[in-house]
């Protein structure tokens, strides 16, 4: 009998997003169970349900043969489930021992028994091979140790089942090996570990069984030793019906943008982009396929002036736009649909019309003399609301009154109506309804057919495949493959390049980049 059984779990959020769709998931006692899938596949939601943070819309959770209902993580902890989050939930100014016992402190005479806390921490640390400095202030210890503190916290609460949400994302290779060793020790002592990841190498290395999720559904659960990395990749990426998009024959024009040897190193010194090269041509959609977190976000932000690059060039019309400010880049008619519309794309508390003029308020005809011409603004706003079918009574309302899809239409309306020379679209349809998705995709194709050079970055592989004329894959900050004809490549093949299983050499790619 499995230790954990989740039966027909569905989770539908208030905004209609289906995160889990009748998911069945089971874990045996004493195993290391990997849960894999692309971002947005629903694995985190499933684990949040198991840990009591989210309530399922329907379905059953059975732990050790008993049906449970979790109203909060306290209930889950009571059922001996512990979760180590991606973002550590530690108090930086407390010591390791204080953090371990936080919430159920050992007491003596009405005060916290610090000695006991220290001893408990030392014991647990020894028992499970999780090395920490019990007296160190959390602020001063490294990431690997913080993670071990998180695990100790859960063990202190008598957790038998440990959920780890992408624990290796923040670790160096050496720390990852240490973590794996610790996980094996835990399992030897009878604990059960659920390990969320999208790194296939780790799945093969550490797990006994693996469950693959895609688009909110479980694709299958297999014994890890029976499958190859390629097979797991295929399950993750899968085949699916493309949305039907009518795309006229490509008429590729002149070269409009060149990215040369672009590099970026993040605050922690990790190289995020390691020399990215590609060209972008008029009249084409160039898709960038890749699992999220492989440098796409940084690439787009550098190209649009929102983030400084470490090195390299971005050439448009013989001008290097690398490390120029957003205004200079926009003046070259480079439009940008940002991946996070609520952060960059709109000012939610400002009106729709104010959101539509941010790239042109200083230009004719909106600026007339030294003031803004509201008559022109009103006309333009009404026109765009109409043309992009933004559902709103009028343009004076704040953007916050719109649904996600209509907010994104405001962004798209602004960026496309600037008649861009180059359009950089990042996750243009993420988290919006089907109608708006279809509309925005159509608009991208229309612009491409009219001659705009379009760069499309999307975590939705079917979107990249159905919209792009040409595709490059990005893995760990490097271009691992280029596919000059997007229609002749299979998802499986792309998947192997996206996950770094295969890669082309620069010499092979050069001609098509």
């Amino acid at each position: 009998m499995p230790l954990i059984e989740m039966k027909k779990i569905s989770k539908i959020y208030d905004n209609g997003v289906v995160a889990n769709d009748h998911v069945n998931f089971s874990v045996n006692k004493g195993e290391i169970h990997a849960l894999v899938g692309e971002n947005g596949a629903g694995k985190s939601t499933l684990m949040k349900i198991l840990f009591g943070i989210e309530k399922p819309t329907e379905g059953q959770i059975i732990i050790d043969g008993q049906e449970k209902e979790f109203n909060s993580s306290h209930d889950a902890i009571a059922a001996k489930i512990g979760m180590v989050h991606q973002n550590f939930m530690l108090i930086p100014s407390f010591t390791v021992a204080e953090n371990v016992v936080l919430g159920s402190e050992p007491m003596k005479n009405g005060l916290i028994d610090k000695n006991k806390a220290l001893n408990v921490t030392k014991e647990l640390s020894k028992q499970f091979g999780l090395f920490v400095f019990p007296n160190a202030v959390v602020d001063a210890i490294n990431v690997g140790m913080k993670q071990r503190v998180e695990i100790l916290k859960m063990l202190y609460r008598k957790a038998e089942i440990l959920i780890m949400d992408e624990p290796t994302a923040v670790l160096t290779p050496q720390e990852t090996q240490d973590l794996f060793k610790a996980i094996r020790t835990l399992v030897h002592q009878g604990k059960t570990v659920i390990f969320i990841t999208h790194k296939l190498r780790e799945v093969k290395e550490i797990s006994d069984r693996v469950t693959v999720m895609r688009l909110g559904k479980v694709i299958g659960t297999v014994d890890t030793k029976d499958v190859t990395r390629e097979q797991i990749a295929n399950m993750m990426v899968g085949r699916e019906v493309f949305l039907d998009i009518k795309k006229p024959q490509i008429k590729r024009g002149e070269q409009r943008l060149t990215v040369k040897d672009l590099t970026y190193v993040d605050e922690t010194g990790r190289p995020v982009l390691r020399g990215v090269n590609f060209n972008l041509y008029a009249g084409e959609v160039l898709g960038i396929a890749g699992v999220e977190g492989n440098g796409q976000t940084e690439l787009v932000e550098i190209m649009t002036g929102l983030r400084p690059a470490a090195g390299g060039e971005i050439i448009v019309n013989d001008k290097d736009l690398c490390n120029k400010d957003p205004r200079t880049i926009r003046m070259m008619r480079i439009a940008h649909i940002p991946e996070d519309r609520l952060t960059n794309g709109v000012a939610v508390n400002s009106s729709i019309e104010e959101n539509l003029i941010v790239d042109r308020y200083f230009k004719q005809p909106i600026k007339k003399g030294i003031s803004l011409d509201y008559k022109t603004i009103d006309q333009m706003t009404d026109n765009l609301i109409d043309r992009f079918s933004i559902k709103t009574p009028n343009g004076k309302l704040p953007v916050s009154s719109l649904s996600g899809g209509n907010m994104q239409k405001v962004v798209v309306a602004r960026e496309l109506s600037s008649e861009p020379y180059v359009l950089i679209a990042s996750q243009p349809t993420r988290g919006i309804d089907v109608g708006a998705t279809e509309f925005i995709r159509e608009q991208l194709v229309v612009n491409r057919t009219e001659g705009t050079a379009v760069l499309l970055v999307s975590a939705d592989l079917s979107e990249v495949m159905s919209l792009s004329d040409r595709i490059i894959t990005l893995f760990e900050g490097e271009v691992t493959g280029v596919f000059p004809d997007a229609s002749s490549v299979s998802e499986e093949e792309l998947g192997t390049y996206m996950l770094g299983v295969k890669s082309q050499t620069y010499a092979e790619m050069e001609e098509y980049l």
Partner: protein
Amino acid sequence: MRELFRKKAFREFLRVLLALGIGLGLGFVVTIFVSKDPIGNYRAFLLGPVSQLNRIGDWLEESTTLIFLGLAVAIVFTAKQFYIGVEGQMILGAFVAGTIVLYAPFPPLLRVIAAFIGAALMGMIWGVIPAVVKAYLNASELVSSLMMNTIALRLFDYLVSTYLQQPKVAGIMSELFPKEVRLPSFIPNLPFLADIRMLWERQTSVSVMIYVAIGAVIVVYWLLYKTPFGYELRMVGSNSKFARYGGINVKRIIVLSITISGIFAGLAGVHVALAITHRIVQNMSAGLGFEGVNIAILSFNNPAIVPFASLLYGYLRAGADVMERMGDVSRELVMIVQAAVLLLITAERLLPVVQQRVTTDEEEEGQVVHEKGVKHVA
């Protein structure tokens, strides 16, 4: 009536009125506890400012200063800069204006004009340091502007006591300004108005500055809502990341918002010096700079509401003066009223019944939906 309720402006007005009512009620409750004659004291507080001409004058003068200060703070708050250095800018503005009218070797009219320009420039310059460290080093403008206030006040005291001090007087103050550089009465010097003008001039210091204040309101309103600069300012305040993404130079706007705000703080200083005290004197700002923050909050940072908020606030302050002078209740009571009013106004959830939200979901297209689900209107 329901139509009226749907108008946002009306609902906000109602909210202010309600807040004021609750605040005053609370003040009365406290008065009952502290005063032997609560009703008499409260009457003095509520009706005092309009009971005599000189008191009306006090009220209008203070309100005029408050308008400039409220505008100054409204500008920085619009850009979401929590800058509260208006006090320092104002007092240094007053100092510069005073020194110019006292010592500049120009004819009187030119001296007054130079005083306006000098004070405005002073206000701007004093804002540069906190503005630049905020924009380029991300140092909290709240902290730096507070520190600049202290520096300004001490610098003012030092300069006045060292260079302008009148011999044989008790307080730290300069000599009186000559008559010809004091700001004239707000009533035009016309034959048929001569009597009224004389009456007002004798009992009050209400000057032409009141017209300058109204002009400033119009200018700031135009600047914030009708110009590209105002748009930039509002977008930086609304979502600075969006502003940056759209190509707005956010750092430049932060610096400009604080320095331009300084102009109006400087003008407040001109008003206090040239129309009210008629000399440079210690404590001439009387802590009014911080009241500018309250005015801005009361007016939702909208320049068009600033004069009304200033009149209301000035009235409460003037009433407090009267009550303190005539009765046994100290002016701190008014602070309770003020604090209660501000708190209630800033509490977004007050009057939730009349709050409404417009949603535009597919199935409800074109319909206005009350948040409480009371009514659907096509």
